[in-house]
């Protein structure tokens, strides 16, 4: 009940909040509502928005499918410490890599002359420059967010209840689904939201590995980038749409994780 929050935490926290909120307000102030409405109802915007939502959703699912097991392995396996540290550090690299370089790395992997180019072409699969490439790029940059958030939570909770459940005869899968994951639901929600947000905002890697074809690979951030070439104000207005979508998704996700 008693708040253990020292009073002096408030001023820097407020300042921190302002630091993020003020620029957002500055953008809001600039945007002309009529332009905004016209923009967000333009077919190219809508097509980009649809593509963005679809690909970000796919990427998020991929992130969950790969990231949850990865976080589990990082937090619960018996991999020796140094190897684990190195693996964790390597997995964080997409965070630090400039996205365009990340895109190049992907291109070097699945492109025609890439590492997997030969095998993929033999299978008749053309990954680069397709919608699949967008998902690939988004997943690449978004995966570390999920892994990191979830791993942190897994590390700091649940050992006792998990061991108790196993001691009562629950198999690892049941322990995982019945005890571990419900216990880290808030972190799982945070991680999912983070990776969705990162996927939604992804630009550099996408344009590099997927190109920018309307309806196929031109997501909302790419549309915003292109728009900036000709009409910077419109670009800013359109990015408001991105922000709105992200806000709605984040709020919904948090509500569901609570309820």
């Amino acid at each position, binding site marked *: 009940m008693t708040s253990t929050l020292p009073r002096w935490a408030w001023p820097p926290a407020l300042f921190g909040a302002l630091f993020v909120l003020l620029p957002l307000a500055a953008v809001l102030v600039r945007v002309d509502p009529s332009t905004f409405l016209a923009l967000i109802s333009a077919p190219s915007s809508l097509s980009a928005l649809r593509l963005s939502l679809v690909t970000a959703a796919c990427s998020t699912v991929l992130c969950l499918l790969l990231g949850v097991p990865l976080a589990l392995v990082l937090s619960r396996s018996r991999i020796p410490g140094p190897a684990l540290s190195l693996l964790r550090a390597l997995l964080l690299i997409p965070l630090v890599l400039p996205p365009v370089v990340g895109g190049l790395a992907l291109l070097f992997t699945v492109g025609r002359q890439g590492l997997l180019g030969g095998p993929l072409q033999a299978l008749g699969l053309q990954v680069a420059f397709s919608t699949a490439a967008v998902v690939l790029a988004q997943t690449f940059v978004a995966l570390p967010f999920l892994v990191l958030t979830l791993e942190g939570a897994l590390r700091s909770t649940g050992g006792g209840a998990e061991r*108790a459940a196993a001691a*009562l005869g629950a198999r690892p899968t049941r322990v995982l689904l*019945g005890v571990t994951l419900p216990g880290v639901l808030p972190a799982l929600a945070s991680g999912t939201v983070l990776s969705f947000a990162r996927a939604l905002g992804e630009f550099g890697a996408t344009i590099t590995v997927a190109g920018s074809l309307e309806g196929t690979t031109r997501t909302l951030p790419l549309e915003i980038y292109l728009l900036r070439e000709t009409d910077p104000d419109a670009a800013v207005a359109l990015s408001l749409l991105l922000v709105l979508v992200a806000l709605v998704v984040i709020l919904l996700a948090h509500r569901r994780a609570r309820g």
Partner: protein
Amino acid sequence: MSLHVEAQVPERGLDLALDLPAGRTLALVGPNGAGKSSLLALLGGDLRPARGEVVLGGRVLTSVRPGGRTVQVPAHARRVATLGQEAHLIPHLTALGNVAFPLRARGVPRRDARARAHELLAEVGAADLAERRPGRLSGGQQQRVAIARALAADPELLLLDEPMSTLDVDAAAEIRALLPRFLEGRSAVVVTHDVLDAITMAHDVLVLEGGEVQDRGPTADLLARPRTAFAARFAGLALLHGRAGAAPTAGGVAEGAGAVDPTGVPGTDQDAALRLPTGELIQGRRSGDLREGDPALAALRPAAVTLAPSTGDRTAGTVLARTVTGLEPRGDLVRVRTADLEADLAPEAVAAGTLRPGSDVRLLVPRDAVTIYPAR
């Protein structure tokens, strides 16, 4: 399922071997840090010995030997259920969900699991808590739910770590009555600091100290004839070390040596005596084979000790002169400590005299209250 354990865990100071025949309940007692919880963790599969093995009903659950193939059956596959020292209920499940959890894990259909969980909750007196999450339960309520959950696991071997420690007197009594019924036909190990738990639930008692087995035996036996200081205090007895003396031919009040028996009751086969390192000879009842000069022990209830009356008395026993080292309340009596003997005296007796640390006291130890047995 009979249990065989043999293990060394150096980082916990554990080094023991132990066998538990099928269908028996063992009370595991010992001081804090003796290794009781560690032993349970070893059995449950949460701790791997540096060397040793755990075999339950012929199944090798753990085997670590140099050169041999290491076996460590995972916790969930051992058919060993543990109720740990902390309840560790699953926080997002209700009390009912927690109790149903091990049933569901065994594949019991949801409806049946819930029905059985309801029954079990009722048995531990927590029926009305079924829909509450652990975070909204009191400590004792959580413990009740944890007990019901452990019972729901229906294991071959049940491990209970201080299951009663947070229960109120009623719940403790109910669960002391419930557990033996449930444990019938199963093997179980119950860790406890309460002699009542051992008496009411366990066939055998094992005393663990410093990671080693100090003593073990059938409950009544071990509690009546403890062989370690800890076991004696656990049983509520004072323990005296010495050597078997010549059995006196007759009972009576002995001045630490020869015995005089004003009642004239003749000495029987049951009579024995223990010679203390001080040279004094204590009269008592013999239990087990005793040859004069063999190391032997005398156990007695401190409450049976009285102040020796200055005039003659009809009680048969031994009078020992001691110096008081400490006094403390003990129930409605006062515990008087001396170098080797404790006496629980009525407050009147203490108040009347001038008993205080340092003062001399003559204690009468009734012969019938003393059991004398070989130190083994």
